[in-house]
């Protein structure tokens, strides 16, 4: 119960910060709509649905990268990770609270992105929505861990995309496969990715925030 209470307090804090600063979510919304608009004009009319779905996933992954880049800004600029790490709560609660906040931003961006995709290209089915939800979990768990790692580095703006994009390749593979109707095995693949990388990220956070 205490763990859940800590996670809730930390996630609530991040949502409150965004509500006040209004920096991350508006940027994500503008970016994803702009990206889909560019794709709409960049690809030939009548492009196959599967190719268009690929563009949707590219837009979603890069939009997520925006959220992840901003995830630890308050902690980085004000040295607050020290204060959080010193609190006697389980350190993984910091990661999980941040992950939940990132997930909330991703879902909010996708609430706009999926209808926009339907307008520019074609509608999305339930399988795509499910694949996006599963991908969000993977992006949030892995991306938050990598965001914390990047905070410690000097070239943090460069480091996060370099670390995150290779690890996002399986998410794109699973997402495109699932939304293109290539079988339930792609959805299972995303579930497996979420489980394995979620567990690894949960266990690794303690070591990421502990300075050697």
């Amino acid at each position, binding site marked *: 119960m*205490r763990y859940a209470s*800590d996670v809730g*307090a930390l996630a609530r804090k991040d949502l409150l910060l965004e509500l006040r600063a209004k920096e991350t979510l508006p940027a994500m919304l503008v970016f994803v709509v702009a990206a889909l608009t560019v794709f709409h004009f960049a690809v030939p009319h009548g492009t196959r649905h599967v190719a268009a779905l690929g563009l949707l996933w590219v837009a979603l992954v890069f939009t997520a990268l925006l959220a992840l880049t901003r995830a630890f800004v308050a902690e980085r600029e*004000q040295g607050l990770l*020290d204060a959080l790490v*010193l609190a*006697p709560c389980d350190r993984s609660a910091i990661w999980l609270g941040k992950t939940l906040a990132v997930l909330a931003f991703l879902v909010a961006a996708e609430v706009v992105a999926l209808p926009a995709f339907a307008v520019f290209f074609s509608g999305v089915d339930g399988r795509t929505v499910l694949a996006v939800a599963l991908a969000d979990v993977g992006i949030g768990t892995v991306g938050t861990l990598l965001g914390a790692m990047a905070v410690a580095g000097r070239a943090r703006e460069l480091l996060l995309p370099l670390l995150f994009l290779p690890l996002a390749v399986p998410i794109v593979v699973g997402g495109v496969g699932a939304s293109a109707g290539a079988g339930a095995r792609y959805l299972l693949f995303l579930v497996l990715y979420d489980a394995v990388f979620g567990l690894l990220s949960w266990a690794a956070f303690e070591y990421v925030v502990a300075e*050697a």
Partner: protein
Amino acid sequence: MIRARRLGKRYGERRVFADVDLDLDRGGLLLVTGPNGSGKTTLLRVLAGLAAPSAGELQLPPREAIGYLGHEPLVYRELTPLENLSLFGRLYRIPERGERIGMLLERFGLWEVRHERVATFSRGMQQRLGLCRVLLHDPGLLLLDEPANALDSHGLELLGDVLADRGRAVAVATHDPRSVEPLATERLAFA
């Protein structure tokens, strides 16, 4: 509270400090002095458990018994003082935290602005809030890095009261030790 023997820290080839011996108990005030870049902050980070020592032995109290104030006040600027202290009060599982938070905000002259965003505060007010944060869980060990930063005369008085409280062990790192010197029981000078 703190026992250190031949404590050392290096980053790669660069030695920050070496062979530091320390014994600090409740009622003791350790004054760490030295110019900028001499290793004061790194020593406090090691004593807080935020950085691992490279050499030597170190005994520290548990995390919940440590209050650490770094160069920054370590509070969220987009939150109010009340929201900041409520968050940390929850993480530190402080019983009756509303009462404790109210008492600290009153003591440090922040009660009237408890609902205003910290971003609108002067640096001195932020430092006072940082002191509230480290005292919130009534730690047995206080680690303060340049705590007098930006404090006005009233703020310095309040800090003096905190340092004079002999119910806890305190380590203060500063390049300007004049106000702390009379209270110090242990001294460590970095070159």
